[in-house]
């Protein structure tokens, strides 16, 4: 690697926004992430399976109910709709084959560009903006929880209750 020129600022490793989102999800103490992909959009990045989406996978933490995770996921996707984003934010519970060693359902959060025909630079920009927005939403959910409040889904959005 090329060392920075004398007198210049020390090179700061660039951390993709995804690392912050993964950290934010783990900070909720509701989920434990085990896999993530920031989306690989260049032509030479492509493999047999589609990699052009951001994909974070996690288990529910111990003593956390499925309903709590569902509320978090619905809060994320509902709030994401209020942002001006060119990505779709989707949340799933995935059923796994019972042959798998860890066969309990896993949860998946996906962020994908609205238009697959956009060029890779635009998709990268849109995805990074989407990841940043979702990180803010997850941090907001954590803050609400730390304040001793709970999120309750209501028609059209969410309410906070103690």
């Amino acid at each position, binding site marked *: 690697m090329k060392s920075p020129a004398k007198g210049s600022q020390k090179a700061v490793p660039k951390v993709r926004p995804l690392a912050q989102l993964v950290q934010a999800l783990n900070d909720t103490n509701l989920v434990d992430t085990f896999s993530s992909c920031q989306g690989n959009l260049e032509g030479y990045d492509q493999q*047999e399976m589609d990699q052009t989406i951001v994909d974070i996978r996690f288990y529910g933490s111990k003593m956390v109910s499925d309903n709590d995770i569902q509320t978090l996921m*619905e809060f994320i996707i509902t709030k994401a709709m209020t942002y001006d984003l060119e990505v779709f934010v989707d949340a*799933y519970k995935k059923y796994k*084959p019972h042959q798998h060693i860890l066969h309990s359902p896993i949860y998946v959060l996906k962020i994908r560009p609205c238009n697959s025909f956009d060029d890779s630079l635009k998709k990268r920009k849109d995805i990074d903006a989407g990841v940043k927005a979702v990180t803010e939403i997850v941090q907001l959910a954590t803050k609400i929880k730390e304040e001793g409040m709970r999120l309750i889904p209501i028609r059209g*959005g969410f309410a906070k209750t103690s």
Partner: protein
Amino acid sequence: MKKLKKGEQPMAWKPRPIEPKIKPLVDALMQTKLLKTFSSCQGHYRGTDQLQQDRNFADVRFWKLPKASEKELQAILVYVVSEFWPQKTDMTMEAFKKYIPSAAVNDDPIYLITLTPLDRFDHPHKKRKDTDNGIKLATELVKIATRLNKEGKLVVK
């Protein structure tokens, strides 16, 4: 801009017939009596079929019927993906519960089954053939799961 006729709604959604290659799976799912399908796609692989959203997989989407139990539906989905998994096919089958924003008109979670070719670089003809075989296999598995469920032999974990 197209001029609307009297009484015509802008962006009106018009139901279209179920695509023929996915119809057997849709019918088999409806026979479980646990769900109601509302959307399906048989997968579109030719270059000229591509739209802004990825269509390179087959999927069926459905709601759980109010009287059906979620555990029962989950047992059927887990059975189908578990039995599909060891089969020698060039497809991957996945089953999901998809969460819906609270702001939606109907915010009940939906369920979906997807069948995706393992290698998206394969020729469209091969992907079509693999998908058709995958749909056939999935249809048989759903029928078996339905029968086992009716006989009370499907284990709900």
